[in-house]
């Protein structure tokens, strides 16, 4: 027997294995073959934020994807009328499908509300891994398409007819 993960004594690489399982649970990563996913799991870091810590802030291009392992954070944005709260991001949420693919300024700010532990993956690391597996492109694009269509579908089924501004905004899957 030479499989290192099954045969090894007590806890030899538990964080890596845990993170690998977390990534497998995220639709965006689920289709990626195991050897690619292992690299991503190895490249992720776990970061802990205290209440009030800012994970990312509006206008910046920090290039980090976040998966909340524990805790709760507040998503907000700033306009002429001040800071507007959007919603809470909670344990199990993953933010970063687009951020991993290319540069974009943040339209929102994410602030930790309780002590929050995240799995963080940087764009540069993701893209370099991506380069190593030419076959990944299709799978990642498909995952992105499905998320956008899913978003649009949810929006369609929940908005009230007669809301004029909503009609203007529906159809993000048409971009």
């Amino acid at each position, binding site marked *: 027997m030479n499989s290192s993960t099954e045969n090894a004594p007590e*806890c*030899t*690489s538990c964080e*890596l294995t845990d993170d690998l399982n977390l990534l497998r649970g995220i639709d965006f990563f689920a289709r990626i073959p195991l050897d690619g996913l292992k690299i991503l799991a190895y490249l992720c870091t776990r970061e802990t934020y205290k209440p009030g810590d800012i994970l990312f802030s509006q206008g910046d291009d920090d290039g980090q994807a976040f998966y909340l392992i524990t805790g709760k954070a507040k998503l907000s944005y700033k306009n002429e009328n001040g800071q507007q709260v959007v919603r809470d991001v909670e344990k199990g949420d993953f933010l970063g499908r687009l951020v991993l693919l290319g540069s974009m300024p943040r339209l929102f700010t994410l602030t930790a509300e309780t002590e929050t532990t995240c799995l963080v993956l940087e764009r540069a690391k993701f893209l370099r891994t991506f380069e190593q597996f*030419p076959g990944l492109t299709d799978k990642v694009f498909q995952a992105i398409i499905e998320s956008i269509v899913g978003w649009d579908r949810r929006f369609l089924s929940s908005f009230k007819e007669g809301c004029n501004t909503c009609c203007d905004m529906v159809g993000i899957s048409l971009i």
Partner: protein
Amino acid sequence: MPSKERPAEKPIVKRSLYSWVFGFNTKLQILLLVVILFTVFARVVPLEMQKRIVNSAIKLRKIDLLLLYCGFFLAAVTAAGILKYVINIIETYIAQRTITAMRKSLYEHIITLPLSFFRNTQPGTVVNALSVELNIPGNFVGMAIAAPVTNILTLLAFAGYLIWLNLWLALLSLSMYPLIVFLVPMLQKRVNRANKERVDMAREFSGRVAESISGIHEVQANGAYPIENNKFGIIVDKLRQIRLVWSLYRFGIKTLNNYMTSLGPFIVFILGGYLSIKGRLELGALVAFLSAQEKLYNPWKELIEFYQVYQDGMVNYNRTMEFFNKEPDHQLEPVGRKPFELEGNIEVSNLRFLTDSGLELLGGINLSLKAGEHLAVVGFSGSGKSTLAQCIGQLYAYSSGNILIDDHEVAQLTKRDMARNLGFVSQSPLIFTGSIEENLLYSAAAANWNIESQKAERLPTLDDIIAVLQQTGIFVDVLRFGLNTVLSAKEYTALIKTLVQVRANFQLEFGKALADYVEFYDETKYLYHSNIADNLILGAARRVDFEQHMLCENEYFLNFLKEADLNRPLLGLGAHLSRQTVDILGDIAPDPVLFAQSPIAPEELDTFKDIVKRLNTLKLHQLDENDQTHLLDLALRFVPGKHKMAGLPVMLSGLILESRAMFRERISIDDPDAFAFYDINQYIHSQSILNNIFFGTTTTANPLAQEKINQSIIQLLIEEDILEAIVKIGMQFQVGSKGDKLSGGQRQKLAIARAFLKQPKLLIMDEATSALDNKSQTRIQNLLTHRYKGKSTLVAVVHRLDTIKTFDKIAVMKAGKIGEMGTYDDLIAQKGMLYELVYGKRA
């Protein structure tokens, strides 16, 4: 006669190869001639002695004469040898001196050539021209006097001597040479044709290789190895073909020459032999004749070789110079006046710019800026924004129209005028190999360069530099570089003392707040962000044999590991680490980003792959010593907090903690000077400044944590008054080739700081802040508005429209023309092109 290091003013590409022989090296060449005359004399003497030895000394049986003539013979041979050596030295000296001067002048010329020239010229081509192609022409210049004069004189001397010995025999045996003189140039013509092709091909070859290597990321990203190999193969094969033809002709000349000259002795034997038998030629004369005849061969061979070098040198030189025979667009230095000090009024009228292929990039631009006004140029990509900026900055020569700065036409200004008054920040600025400081001073030094003294006249002070570092926001980065430096003990004794004192204050003021991000050195705890070797020793080696990379070969340390029962557990950990790393990273390209968290460096990967393969069939103890050393070394490097592929078994961390105390106890008796153990009151010379202040290591590279750490450290350093000292150390940070150790944002900030340090009257920024985050961009924008408005004229090509409200004027460009120009509010109210750009088409 210009015989100084700087040759005549005529550009090198217009100089003939001959001008290097005489004008440049006259004195040396004359010296050479004198030496040659002596040499030729020294070469003929032995022949006469030879004859006299046979005819007089031996025939008359006179020992004293024999000794005398032999003495002369020996003296002449020795002198000829020494003189030949002297000739070689002078020749080599002339050749190297010439090659160096040619390289300098050609480089000086090439870097002034217009940007358009470099669009079609690969860097490799330039490298090839400067390094390889000038060697043969230089060698020719070295030989140009010595080789023909020595050899022709020697030949004449020998021929004269032969004729004096026997007219007819001489004439007959020399009859081959005219024939050679007739045949060789015919062959040489073909050699030259092949050589011309070779020079062109070699140039293309270097260009292609340089292109592929500089685009290696594209090659690897596309996995285009076969395509690249194919392209390379084709050109190498062609080069081989040409070189083969070239060499064959060259050898043809050599062979022909050898054959023809060896016919000489044949004639002497058959004819001289006959005459001698008939008693019409003395035996001594025949011996002298034969050896003189033989001596003809060497000078003749050298002459032919020289002829070949001459021809090849001509071809290489002319071919190379023709290629670079272009004029720079602008004069470099003003003549008869000082550089202008401009105010920065800009007047552009009817400006047009056409590419070489006739494409119109700018079609009639008119704009006017008073000194100190700020203009933002916006528009879609391809609308000519950058071209406009580059025309104003004198980087491109415009086709027609005018650009006036303070009534001076930009096309007529010298490069020095521009450097003095203009700060140019390009879209993707290049940072050069060297320190941050050197890069910061690059522009200011160039603008104030004194050609006579070869130094910059006045440079910004440290205060100026620090101010600009802060304004551009690269201050924190430079401070970081400083903090990450491992100081050498000798240079910084005073600072080191202060740093130890700072440590206590840090613990007091920030210890608690930063406890989450720092793992403090603690004798009683296992340190998860230090490696196993550090955990075992917790000290800095005072001797080389105890330094970390040597530990695996250190007898004392290895024995200790065995006694502490650590050897096998560590080997096991090493095996596990290598299995895991090879499993995860075994099949991917050696990308530094992907290997940053790996204990195995990309270049070691193959070694460990082999070990892992062996581990499949062998047990740990069956591995050979070399493999075991590798595994042990890997285990000692393991940092559990960083190298995620494995965890540290609890049992092992406990064992290591136990051994730490044991090791200290042992070595303080056996070898008390081997280590300086970590001590809160002592500076740790093997650790960075930051780790010394912390008396610990940071546990995360997370930007938020870094920011918090930076804030506390800056506050602390200000309080202790050593901030400047650390920044100064940080400015010595080596940025790597093309600045590759800096991030894109850092490079851009450095380029902006480089331009600001010059405090130019005219600033051109071509999307200069595109790689910066929001905060840095806003900082630069504020700086421009508050510090530079009214003082320096600014032309900024801008792609992010949220930053343009504060500009005095905005020009919206479309298809090479200015569509509209005015203040932000006016243009928005007009609801024209700017409105469309800002709010989109739909509204």
